[in-house]
């Protein structure tokens, strides 16, 4: 039979899944699979650096427990990394929102009236088969929804665009 060290070296060449599976092969396999030889190799090469940068100190007594700790997300570098990512994400969101607003303004310029008048009508025509509840609900809910949309358009237009366009929207 192979020595425990040899079994550990073999298991270190497999994957974490295989190492965990071999825990239930036999008691000698269990101690071989729990050894630091195996998990040292399965951990990322800079795991010591990661552990030392963690905000909350990790509790572990073996390399295997470090692996388990690192399976969950941890905050590193005093949490600054996450803050920076949050700022990046917020910036991206703002850019996306302003692009959507530009797009809405463009649509409002060209054929806002046509779209607003036709949309609820189309919706009702499409859905008679799907039952009474939806066809009754849609006329009541859609004009309301569109009202909000029109008001939002007007406000943004009135603050930024000239009076002529503003009146045009209101008259429609």
């Amino acid at each position, binding site marked *: 039979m*192979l020595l425990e060290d040899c079994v550990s070296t073999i*298991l270190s060449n497999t994957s974490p899944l295989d190492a965990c599976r071999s825990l239930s092969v036999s008691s000698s396999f269990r101690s071989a699979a729990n050894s630091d030889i195996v998990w040292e190799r399965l951990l990322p090469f800079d795991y010591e650096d990661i552990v030392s940068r963690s905000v909350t100190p990790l509790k572990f007594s073996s390399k295997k427990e470090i692996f388990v700790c690192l399976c969950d997300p941890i905050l590193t570098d005093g949490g600054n990394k996450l803050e920076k990512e949050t700022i990046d994400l917020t910036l991206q969101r703002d850019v996306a929102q302003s692009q959507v607003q530009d797009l809405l303004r463009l649509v409002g310029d060209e054929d806002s009236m046509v779209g607003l008048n036709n949309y609820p009508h189309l919706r009702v025509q499409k859905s008679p088969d799907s039952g009474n509840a939806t066809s009754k609900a849609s006329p009541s809910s859609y004009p309301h929804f569109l009202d909000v949309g029109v008001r939002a358009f007007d406000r943004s237009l009135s603050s930024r665009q000239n009076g002529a366009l503003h009146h045009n929207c209101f008259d429609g």
Partner: protein
Amino acid sequence: MSSSLEKNMLILRSSDGEEFIVPEVVAVMSKAIKNMVEDECASNTIPVPNVDANILAMVIEFCKKHDESEAEAASDLKTFDSEFVNRGQEALYDLITAANFRDVKELLDALCQNVAEMIKGKSVHHIRIQFLGYQLFEILTSNFIWNIWCDRDFD
């Protein structure tokens, strides 16, 4: 002749008494032998207990090839390694034990990598049969022990 033998060659004696004349550079690929040579506690003949002639010959073949082809292309060495480790279970385990005991790192790495490929993604049952099959056979020949075996931890 004996002086040249002393300088560059070593004699390794296997557990069953067979002797192999090996260049020193090849023999010291085993860290255990290297330590013995450096400490000058070894005479010409170095006993290699626990390793029989058959296995020792294989280990020497491997070390010779690695010593010769140090400058050669790594791909050639890889092909040799994969062919070398392609052996039956029993020889494989004996080789691993020998490589571990004599501390031949290259050989141990190649062998362990090979066995690892065998158990990757395999079920517990499969690994049991592969690693403990020989032992189980011995136990199963006795019906009396069979009953005990059913409850015991596979060890």
